[in-house]
């Protein structure tokens, strides 16, 4: 059966759904960010396994390496770019979360949406 043979792809899809579920259901912003990172990781995993070749070798011309047996280098190069962008997004999002916590004293999305004035927050620092 094709689904069992493509188990790398299937695992990536399941991981994506786990991440999306976390993003939707969790109320803590940091946990939402963790879910976002799980989704990103699943996309990277899917992409890199697209370049896999049965019995393939690393795409490095060392010694008498046969180019025909090398795995696809393009997904690896693209995902290297993707990882760096994911790190950038996470860093920027986390810094905004830090600022939100300083202003409102909570990480709960529902409570953040209800708060109108920073002064009304309990435990929030005055800026």
């Amino acid at each position, binding site marked *: 059966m094709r689904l069992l043979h*493509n188990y790398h792809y299937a695992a990536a899809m399941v991981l994506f759904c786990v991440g999306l*579920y976390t993003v939707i259901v969790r109320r803590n912003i940091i946990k939402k960010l963790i879910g976002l990172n799980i989704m990103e990781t699943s996309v990277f995993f899917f992409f890199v396994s697209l370049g896999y070749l049965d019995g393939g070798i690393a795409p490095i011309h060392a010694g008498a390496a046969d180019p025909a047996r090398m795995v696809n280098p393009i997904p690896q*190069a693209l995902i290297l770019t993707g990882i*760096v962008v994911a790190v950038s997004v996470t*860093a920027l999002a986390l810094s905004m979360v830090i600022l939100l916590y300083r202003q409102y004293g909570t990480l709960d999305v529902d409570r953040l949406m209800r708060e109108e004035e920073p002064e009304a927050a309990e435990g929030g620092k005055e800026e």
Partner: protein
Amino acid sequence: MKKVVALLFIVALAVLLLYVVANMPPMGDPENPTATHVISRYLERAEEETHTENVVTGVILNYRGYDTMGEVTVIFCALAGVLAVLGRERRGVIHAFVDRSEVPSSVIVKTMVRFVVPFIILFSVYTILHGETSPGGGFQGGAIIGGSMIIFTTIFGLYESSRRIPLKVRASLEGAAVMGFFLVGALGLLGGGNFLTYAWPRVARSLQPSLVVWLTVLVEVGVGLGGAMVLISILFAMIREEEEIAPAP
């Protein structure tokens, strides 16, 4: 209720995605569309065209140099965003790193970190400089340097680690990755070639291979240093406490 709806939605999405996976070409088959198009040209010609043994490095820095330049700009912009949101520490002011853990770091942990960090940095230098001939490269090496400084900062605190890497050094090296790319691109223009092609028509043919290798190493070092400094600056901005303890003498 909300959870049930979300779960139903996720299950429906999972079924759809798995149905697609079941109809995709078999994984690892040499006849796959991903393995039959542009890739064979990259694999066969990369060594003579980019003079790098590692094809991934050749693709990142040479064939898709523009992409990587844009990506390097993205992390630089992320740093600019973090600093715009959280602010940077001011020169001459000691910033506190408040240790909220119950137990302070023990002597064993401190000694181990002090012992291990130089070796981690040595390994990252190897990763950066050997990126053309083995797995590795600028981003990986830069991430390793950043990781070693994260270990150091969690154990010794912000004050100690910002003394090791002062603000001046970080501020001048954060743009190294972007600068490296633009420098090599501009040098290529001066050499009579195109932006970021690494091939200079005005230079003798016999010198071309070593020229390409040196320019690639220059970009790798720039990306490594710049990436590391961006990571360290983001870390410092995030753990910096608002209270300023005392102005430095």
